[in-house]
């Protein structure tokens, strides 16, 4: 059942659709933990046994719905006593893509900055953004035109203020990048060369050859490395945000991270935290995202009581090279999909299913030249109906020289795997590319969690609406990262670092006590569970959706998660234990569930979200989908912060 209400409190100005399904009975905004009046703020998050007893005295309910809590008390005491490394910074930035780096460079002028990144700093979605950045940089172009293009692409679900802000401030952000050393292509007249991508009415795409993202990343990283106020902690995987309750407000105090090289937990206490952790492509089996994109930020924010929005809008590309269809399979799984350009269809490529039936004419009179989203839905529909893994894109009927001169990259790649595209069709399958939704952000990148800001793909600023316009994502990251700077500085100046804060939360635990045999089993199972989750998501939460399939996804994911958690805890895994693969898995579960819940809440088809039982746009549903934090009466490991109290029934 979906309902529209005005948002209670906060900075949103319009009504929202929210999911009132089973998981969100208490979807009205309530604090997830009610320690008010019972404990001072300083004591609220410690999980030692003695404090546990104090809590009981305060008449808070605790429901033991989960057997896993049996050993909770003893475990936490020992964890509480353990010492560990704590670092103190004015600003903590999670993620080293364009949003994180851009923000860091500005706030570093006012305080110390830690950039926490889970792999090498350049390993981000930004680095793979190889088109361009859109901005109004041509005299004959206008902010209004860019806004209009954005809103049309977003199927009118965009937040108009966000769109205005991004389109207006974009050009200055580009100029700053150039001043920082990013070099973009120019025309022979000395001006920036602007390309025109689909959906844009003007030439407005700034680019650096075809490696724009990489060039921006390079320029920003260089500046970051040279900044004495910025410390980069690479191979530090962010586990959970450190939060506390101040009345009805949730406040963020920093982040726990795991140094995956040394297997040590590091606690970062910071006055301000920016979440810029990127996307979640790996909830699907086929994605253009690098391996790091496992939705860590969205999951951590949700667990920290931040509001999540529009997660149903996942952008897919219809024709990524399908490795399963290649005669010679790649030796290891391709990290990020190879997208086959629309130009192949534009130049006469024909789509066939595996029975060599041309299916596009069944879906659209324009056949292969139908708009991309129609093609994506058609391919998805064929694959689901026929229970197949890929379709075929055939260009072999075209002149050989033309094929090789226009598409040498595809020709090479396929040839390396035993396929000659001048003779045989290309196996293709849709790939997940971009998350339009994420952590709900206001115009300054602020969230409902005090001291927590978001920017980039992890955020939902309202810019993209129901579908992202090409080249707008790098722009959004730049603009919002910059906008979050002043509010962050103001907030930082008005807060003080509590040096004893570090002991307020139980420290995560590295699973040394389990031994390598058990760890090996756990890692193996986790790997299989990840594949199973991705398979469920693709099969039931793909491009063409329906209520029954989404409900089935909900069931299957719930069962899979329970099975996985049971396995872990049966093998001695403890509540506060951390390992990269396990933490990523819990984040993937969290994000997958957010996508499914959001998809179930939108009973219309709009932009990227298509429902066979609600195939049309409904004007009355032109509202964002918002997920409020739930009170964790039936919480799983993936939905609770590691250091959080065991299940507490909130006062309803």
């Amino acid at each position, binding site marked *: 059942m979906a309902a529209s209400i005005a948002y209670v409190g906060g900075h949103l100005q319009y009504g929202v659709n929210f999911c009132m399904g089973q998981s969100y009975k208490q979807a009205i905004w309530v604090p997830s933990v009610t320690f008010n009046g019972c404990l001072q703020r300083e004591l609220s998050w410690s999980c030692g046994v003695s404090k546990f007893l104090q809590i009981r005295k305060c008449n808070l309910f605790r429901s033991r719905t989960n057997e896993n809590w049996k050993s909770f008390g003893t475990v936490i005491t020992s964890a509480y006593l353990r010492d560990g490394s704590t670092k103190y910074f004015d600003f903590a930035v999670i993620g080293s893509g364009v949003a994180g780096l851009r923000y860091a460079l500005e706030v570093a002028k006012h305080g110390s900055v830690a950039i926490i990144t889970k792999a090498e700093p350049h390993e981000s979605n930004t680095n793979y953004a190889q088109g361009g950045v859109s901005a109004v940089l041509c005299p004959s172009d206008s902010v209004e035109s860019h806004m209009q293009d954005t809103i049309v692409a977003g199927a009118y679900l965009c937040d108009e203020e966000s769109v205005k802000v991004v389109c207006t401030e974009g050009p200055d952000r580009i100029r700053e990048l150039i001043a920082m050393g990013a070099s973009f292509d120019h025309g022979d007249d000395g001006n920036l060369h602007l390309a025109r991508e689909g959906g844009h009415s003007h030439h407005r795409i700034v680019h650096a050859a*075809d490696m724009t993202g990489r060039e921006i990343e390079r320029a920003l990283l260089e500046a970051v490395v040279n900044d004495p106020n910025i410390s980069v902690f690479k191979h530090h995987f962010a586990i959970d945000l450190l939060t506390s309750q101040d009345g009805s407000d949730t406040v963020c105090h920093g982040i726990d991270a795991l140094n995956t090289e040394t297997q040590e937990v590091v606690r970062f206490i910071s006055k301000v935290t920016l979440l810029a952790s990127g996307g979640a492509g790996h909830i699907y089996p086929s994605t253009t995202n690098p391996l790091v994109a496992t939705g860590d930020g969205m999951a951590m924010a949700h667990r920290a009581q931040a509001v999540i929005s529009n997660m149903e809008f996942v952008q897919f590309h219809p024709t990524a090279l399908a490795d399963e269809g290649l005669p010679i399979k790649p030796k290891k799984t391709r990290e990020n999909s*190879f*997208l086959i350009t629309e130009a*192949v269809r534009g130049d006469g490529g024909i789509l066939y299913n595996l029975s060599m039936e041309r299916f596009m004419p069944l879906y659209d009179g324009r056949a292969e030249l139908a708009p991309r989203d129609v093609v994506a839905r058609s391919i998805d529909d064929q694959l689901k109906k026929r229970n197949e893994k890929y379709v075929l894109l055939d260009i072999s009927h075209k002149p050989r020289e033309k094929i090789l001169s226009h598409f040498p*990259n595809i020709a090479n790649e396929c*040839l390396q795997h035993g396929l000659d595209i001048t003779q045989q069709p290309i196996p293709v399958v849709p790939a997940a590319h971009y998350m339009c939704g994420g952590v709900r952000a206001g115009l300054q990148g602020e969230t409902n969690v005090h001291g927590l800001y978001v920017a980039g793909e992890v955020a939902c600023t309202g810019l993209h609406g129901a579908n992202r316009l*090409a080249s707008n994502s790098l722009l959004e990251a730049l603009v919002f990262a910059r906008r979050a700077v002043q509010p962050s500085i103001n907030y930082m100046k008005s807060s003080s670092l509590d040096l004893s804060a570090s002991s307020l939360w139980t420290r995560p635990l590295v699973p040394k006590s389990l031994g390598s045999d058990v760890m090996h089993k756990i890692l193996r199972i986790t790997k299989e569970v990840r594949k199973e989750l991705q398979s469920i998501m693709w099969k039931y939460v793909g491009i063409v959706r329906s209520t029954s399939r989404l409900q089935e996804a909900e069931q299957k994911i719930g069962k899979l998660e329970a099975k996985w958690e049971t396995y872990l805890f049966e093998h001695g895994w403890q509540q506060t234990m951390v390992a990269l693969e396990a933490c990523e898995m819990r984040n993937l579960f969290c994000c997958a569930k957010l996508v499914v819940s959001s998809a179930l809440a939108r009973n219309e088809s709009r932009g990227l979200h298509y429902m066979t039982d609600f195939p049309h746009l409904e004007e009355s549903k032109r509202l964002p989908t918002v997920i409020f934090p739930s009170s964790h009466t039936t919480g799983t490991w993936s939905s609770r912060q590691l250091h959080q109290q065991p299940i507490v029934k909130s006062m309803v």
Partner: protein
Amino acid sequence: MAKTSLSRLFASLSEHSITKPSFTGSRSDSVTRSAYNSVTRFVCSSAQETQLIREERSNEGDREAAKENLESVNKEEDEGEDGDHVNKETGEVGGPKGPEPTRYGDWERNGRCSDF
């Protein structure tokens, strides 16, 4: 690795006329060998290409390194060739040769799409 250098050669030769390799079905060995044989005459014509044959032999079996090599060589080649290239229609300096990357709405280079 044989296949990587072969495809790199295909990339550099794509703008010249190519002798049709005789692919005799889907068996990888025959594909590689016959295609390779048919392009060796192009290979020997320059020092750069001769060097590639040496690279290919030493990199055999190391697909990852070879793939990176391919990408960086492609990149170098593009930069080297396009450094002074001015697009007659758009006036773009140093841009891509060949068809306009955004001609079908998405952003493509050599068939691979990177934005849409």
